[in-house]
Structure formats: C-alpha cells, structure tokens
C-alpha cells in the first residue's frame, strides 16, 4: 500500500513542563478531514504514568437500530458494555480475530459486557439488523484518540518525549494501520497533519430502512 505522509513538526521555545497538549489532524488524499480515524501513540520511553487497563468501562450502545459510536477506540483489556436502547432486541456478534463473540438476543436496558483482551479491530454486527455496523479498535498502546467531525484527534497531557504515531480507519485496507515515523512531543506542539488513503467504498453504518419491520 502506497501511503504518503506529510509531517510538519515545529518546536517553539523550551518549556520544562511535564505534560503537554498535542493533536493529530487526519485528512484524506482529497484534503477532506477524516472522521472516526483512530490515532494511537506508541511512547518510545517509559511513561511516568502507566496505562490503567480495566479501570474504565466504555460503551457501545444500540440506538435506533444503529451502533453508537461507529468507532470506539479502547486499550487492551478494556471492558465494553453493549446497552440496548431500542425497544426491540439485538444480537450483537463479531467474527473478528481480535475478539470473536456473540451476544445472544437481549432486550431493552439489558446490558452485556465484553472485555477485549487482544489488540486489533473488532467488527461488530447485528444478526437481526444487517445494516448495523461498528468497530472497536483495541489498541496495545496507552494513548489512543479518535478524530471528530473536524478530523482532529485531541491528545492532552502527554508526557514530553518521543512517540510513534499509528493511525487506523475502517476504510483503510482491511486490518491494516498506518504507522508514522517517531515524533517528539514537547511543551508546545503544533498539530500533526496526517493524510490517509481511504478506499472509495466507505464502510458506513446505514440507517435502518424506514418503516422497517424489526
């Protein structure tokens, strides 16, 4: 896969601050901002504040016959709950290698949880609603963020030092992720611009057909 990466890195001044803010802007080849891109940072040094795996529970809800959020970045070992906000039942499954599971039919306000022990991409579907699609990105690295509608993935309170930046998006070739050269995060950082090449066919979670009989 041919990937072109433009990195603009500028260090301004020398603040002896232990934590700094950083952000990565992800755009596609057409220059359009890319939402739902997962940016994970691989520190090239030992973090002062180690990652607290299993401490928090993240949510992948089902609402209006759609997963929400579409992309959920988690750390290895994170527990994700699958609350059903719909009146009808869902049967969430994954055949992905990172985590193969199936949540048997469950109803409203039933919440089932799954712990994602292995890093990788887990594609989620509903055995009842073919339109439903969501991704859980299980990162092996301690710092992970997702781009918003503005294509910016905010990364706050980073320890200064050198990091390797990994970017993943559902529409990048399946199972692959982009790794950028190591950067050094100081006390003042300009956003890192990353350009990703996406497939023309985008993986999107379609809204359920109207008047559908679920």
């Amino acid at each position, binding site marked *: 896969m041919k990937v072109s990466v433009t990195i603009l890195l500028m260090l301004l001044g020398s603040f002896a601050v232990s934590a700094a803010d950083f952000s990565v802007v992800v755009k596609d080849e057409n220059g359009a901002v890319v939402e739902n891109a997962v940016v994970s940072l691989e520190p090239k040094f030992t973090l002062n504040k180690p990652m607290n795996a299993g401490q928090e529970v993240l949510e992948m809800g089902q609402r209006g016959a759609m997963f929400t959020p579409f992309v959920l970045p988690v750390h290895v070992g994170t527990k994700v709950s699958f609350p059903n906000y719909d009146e009808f039942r869902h049967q969430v*499954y994954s*055949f992905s290698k990172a985590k*193969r599971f199936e949540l048997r039919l469950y109803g409203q306000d039933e919440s089932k949880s799954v712990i994602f022990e292995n890093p990788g991409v887990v*594609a*989620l*579907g*509903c*055995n009842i609603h*073919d339109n*439903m*699609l969501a991704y859980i990105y299980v990162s092996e690295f301690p710092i992970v963020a997702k781009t918003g509608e503005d294509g910016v993935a905010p990364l706050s309170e980073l320890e200064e030092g050198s990091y390797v930046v990994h970017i993943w998006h*559902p529409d990048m070739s*399946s199972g692959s992720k982009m790794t950028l050269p190591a950067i050094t995060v100081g006390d003042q950082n300009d956003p890192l611009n990353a350009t990703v090449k996406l497939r*023309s*066919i985008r*993986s999107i979670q379609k809204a359920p057909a109207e008047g559908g009989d679920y």
Partner: protein
Amino acid sequence: MLFSRLRTKLTFVYLALFFAVMGIILFSFYRSVTDNVRDQTREQLSASTRVFERIVNYRVSTLGESAGALAQDYGFRQALGTFDQPTVMSALNNQARRLEADLAVVTDIDGELIAALMDGATISNMPRIDDALKQKAELQGVATEIVAFEGRIFELVVTTVRAPVPIAWLAFGIELDQAAALEIKALSPIDLEIGFLIEGGQGFGVAAATSDAEALSVFLKKVHMGAANFHSRFMDQDHMFRRLPLGTSEVGTEISALLYYSMDTALAPYEPLVITMITVLGISILLLVAGSVLVSSSVTKPLTDLASAAKNIAEGQYREVETSSEGDEVADLTSSFNQMVKAVHERESKIRFQAYHDAETGLRNRLMFERTVQTDIDESDSFVLVIAEVQQLPELRTVLNHQNINDLIKCVAERIEKVADTGVARISTEAFGFLVHDASEAETLASLVVNSFMTPFDIADIVIDAGIKLGLVKFPGDGEDVATLLRHGQAALDIGRTAARGFAWYDPDKDSSQKARLSMMSELRAGLKNGEVRFAYQPKLDLSTGKITAAEALIRWISPTRGFVAPDEFIPMAERTGDIRHVTDWGLEAAIKQAADWQKQGINLAVAINLSTNDLMNQNLPAFILALLREHNLPAKFLKLEVTESAVMHDMTRALDVLNMLSAMGLSLSIDDYGTGYSSLSYIKKLPVSEIKIDKSFVLNLAKSDEDNILVRSTIELGHNLGLSVTAEGVEDEASVERLRDYGCDVLQGYHIARPLPPAELEAFLKESEYGTL
C-alpha cells in the same frame, strides 16, 4: 443478303437491348431482394442479440438474488467466520443445487479459495474474480461477469459475504452451454444458430453451440472475424454472422457469442418469385424475337422492293415502287424514291432527246440516224440508205436569215418524209439521211423526192427554189457497218450532184478515184514547195497597140508520180478541201515575183492571176497582195486579178468587200469565163471590174457559128457600153482574129497568139514574134 443481314441486325439489337434492360431489372431485383433479406437478417440478428442479452441478464439477476440470499444467511456467515470448512462446503453445495448453478465458489476477503464446486463436485481451482468485479459487487451487492473456465463459459454472479464487514466472496456460475443456446434460439424470432466462443491462440474455439459445434469450430479456424457483422459460406450456405462480445477471459482474450443465420433460408420465400420472373423473361424473349422479326420484315420488305427498283432503273426501266406502308418513314422513302425515279426519267428523256436531235430544228440528228441504221443493220435483211443534200443552200444563206434557213430545213425534211414516207434525220448542215426498206422502190422514191422539189418552198412569204441531190447505198453490198454506209452514201451523193436525174448509186470505182484525189492534196502541198507546180503564162494581145500587154498565169503541175495533172483535176478539189489557200498564196507570190522580174528586165508585162471563191471570201487577201507588191516593188497596174461569175455569186456581199478593196488598191479586175454563168451584164455593172473575158466556148467556133458571132458581138458592144474592156479567150485561128477585130474586141488570148509558155520561152517569144511588148 444485305437485307437479311439488316433483319438479323435489327433482331439482334432488339434482343441485346432487351437483355440489357432485363439484366438491369433482374440485377436490381436480385440486389434489392438480397439487400432486403440481408438487412432483415441483420436486424433480426440485432433483435436476437437483444433477446440474448435480456435472457442472460434475467438468468444472472435470478442467480444474483439467490446468491445474495445465501451471502446473508447467518449460519453460512457464521460458518465462514468461524472457519467451519465442512459447513461452508455443505451450504455451498446445497445452495448450488438449489440454484441449478454449475459453478459455486467461495473465497476469503483476500481472494484465497475456501471452497469450490463444479457440476456438484469439489474442485481445487476456480475462475478468476477480478478486483473490479469485486468492487462492483461490494457497491451493488451483486456483480456479474461472463468468464471462461476450463474451456467453458459461465455467467458468474459474485456477491460479498459480510459479517458485518466483508469477510468473503461468494460466486455462482451458470454455464452458457448448448441448453442455454437452444433456449435463446427458441426465443428468437428467426431460426438462428448460436455459438459460444472463446478466443484462443489459434482463433476462436467453440465452447458450445446450438448445433454442429464441430463444423463451426472447423469453420472458425478458416474465417477471419474482424467486423461484428459479416457473411460467409458455412455448411455450404451463405450465412450472416453477428458476433457479440460477452467478456474477456483470464488471459485477456475475447469471449463472445456468435449468432448466425442462413441467407439461403432467408431467401427461400423469394424462390417462387424468382421462378415467376424467369418464366416471364422467357416468354418475353419469345415474344420479342417474333415481334422484332415482324418489325424488321416490315422495314426490309420495302427496302428489298426499292433495291430491285433501283436495279431496274440502272437497266433503264423506270418503274415506280408500291408500298403497303402509309405515313411512316418507309412510305416517305418510297415516295421520295418514286419522285426521284420520275425526275431521273424525265431528265434522261430530255438528255436523250437533246443527244439525238438537232438543236436548231428539232429534227433527228446524225447520232440518231446512226443508231437507226445500226438497228436496221442488226434487224433488217436489206435496205437502202439515202443521203439527200439541199442545193443552193450557200446562195440562199445570202438572202435568208438564220430562222428562215432553219424553217427551210424543216420544210425540206417534212417534204422528204412525206414523199418517202419515212423518218428523216439531219446528218449535216445541208444533208439529210433516210432509209428505204424496199430496195426495189429506192430509185422510184429517189425520183419522186427529186421531183417534189420542183415545187418551191414558201418561207416567211418568200418563195424559195431549192434543189435536192441524192446518194444511195445498198445494204448489204455497199457497206456492212454504219460508218462505211454513211461514207459511201456521201460518195454516192458526190456523184449524184452532177447526175442528170439528181441521184446516183454508190460506185466503188469512182469512190476509189476520189480517194486517190484526196491523197493528191497532200502531194499538191508538197509540190507547191518543191517546184513541181509552176506557172505557164499565156500572152494577151492588145489589138489597139498590136503589142503583148499582159500574160495570164496558168497553173501547171507536173507530179513525179502522177505526171501532168490538169488543173481541173486538182483545183476544184483543193477548193473543197481548203488547200486552195496554199495554191493562192503560192500563186500570188510567184506571179508578182515574175512580173517584178520582167519589170527589172524592162519587159512591161502585166500578170493576170485567177482567184477562187475562197479567195474572195478572204478579207485578208488585199493586205496580203499589197504586202507582196511592196516586197517586190511592183506597181499595182502590173497585177490583174480574174474572178469567175460563180465565185462572186457564192457570197456576193463578202466578195464585193474584197473586190472593192482590191480595186481601190489600183488592181484591175476581170470577169473570167464570161457567158457561162447566169449573171447578166447589169449585174456585173455593180462590180468594180474593168474587163470581161468572153469564155472560150463562144470564141472557139466563132468562124463557123453565127449564133456565137451574134453573142460575141453583142457582148463586146454591151461591155463597151458599160465602159469595160473586153477580152476574147480561145482565139485559135486568124479568121476569129479578124472577126473580133471587126467587132471591136480589145484584147485577144489564145493559141493563135501563143500557147501558155514558161517564163523563159515567153521572153523568147516576145523577142522573136511580131508583137513584142510596149
């Protein structure tokens, strides 16, 4: 021959035109039919192509729906997602059988084969499914493609298996086999054939066909398929082909369907029409041949008539041509031809008339007469040819004008015709010719003709006496051809002129002397030059002085072959032949020279010379004489000219002109042989003459004849009364001399004085005789 050729030509041209027209029609017909059929076939092949595409699409969409259903089956997806190979294979097999798919394939998302079935059996390979097709399948759910696999052609339907992201590719294939081809054929409006082809290294190979796949395979190896539409011979029939590309094989070669249709089959409905046209053509040819023969006959028949008529005209038969045609070109031609025949006939008659008739009088001419004679020679046993000559015509010309003469000629001809009861032709100015068929009557008839001229003619109120003289020749006997008969007739006429009864038969003896005389003329001309002809001079005694004052020059010709030729023998002939001119020229010169000689010798002797009728007609004579006189320096009074009465009377007007000129020149003129003619003295009075010479016939017997005495005496007296000198010729005795002296005659000439003498002898005579010169 010519006309039969023309008929053939016309028939041939008609046939050629007919064949050309029919050829064009048939060709156009054939072209339009075949073009039409071809267009129809092409259209039907196009229609069939659309049917084909629709059928393929239908099969594919049906298959696609089924494939989509399987792809969404949770159990299947779970089996795939959990790598449950046996379940996957089982589900695939089950679905394939249900769909009647010949091929079923499932691969993982990266295209690695998971399971494949063909004709219900597991296989370890699979047709290629390219990325474009996969992408299309991902976008649309289902994508189809025609693929070649294992030498067979499949309609391949590909779909994505999602769980929920794409995890695998599922493909089903239905083979385009003979059954498929037959199904399409059954739905086609025409009875076409279909073949499914895969392009290989050596052209197209046949995957399946409605029929004759083997033959098609062999055919395709030979034919070059460039265009989508083409036609060629296949299975011994002309076929229209349409190739429909269906897809591309794994190695980039073409997969196509070949739709074809037999043109022979397409043309079959037109067969009865073609047979009808050929029948019509055949009947038309027969009708045309018959018609053109009829038409050309109607043209050539009048032409043949005209040709034979033209041949008749060439032979002198002027017959008009009748034609059955009316109002057409043939009738026009015939009419023109007949007008031409008429005009030619009229013209020929006119020319013939002019050729055979005398322009002045309209009488038949010599040519016509010769033809008539020739006809009689050819057809008659015997006849008598008569040539009649009008006498006194020269004299009559002096008093009658041209028209009167012509009228006279016509009257003469009429009279002879009336008397002789036969056609008369004018064969020369004065002569006529006619034939008498009964030889025994010839003389009687000749006498009757001569006698009939006793009655005078009345021309323009002038009473004219004209005599006629005839010459007769017998056929056969006097000549065997026209020219001889005419010549002998002329000879007979020569005799007849002087014959008492006015006509004469041809006499071969006289004719031969005539011939001899003719040759004499050429001898005469030679004799004039070489001295054979000389003058003898007969002295004339002037009684008043008793001296010889003049001598008459008398011509003498002593021919080495003929001896002495009398002047009577050759002078009249020379006058007739015109040779007299040479005689006159010679004589004048000789006489004047002689007189001049004598003058030089002191002999004063005038020379008298006789002039002929011709000389008197010659207007140049006075100038000629004057030139000679000057040349020899001779005074005019020493030359005397003697003319006869008849010479003057021949053409008095012209003769007078010449005589007056001569007289004016100082020459003295004499009338010779006076008394023999018809002229009276009063007539002579008009002439510028100074002397008359009494003819010797009156003088010779003067001593014995009282009548002659009276005549001579009165003539002398009358002559003196008119102031003329009178000479007596033929004085041969003393008694006559005495009488003439008594009568007062002025000059004597005769043997009693002296015979004609050569100059030398005359000179001697003058010296010796009692007379002497002045």
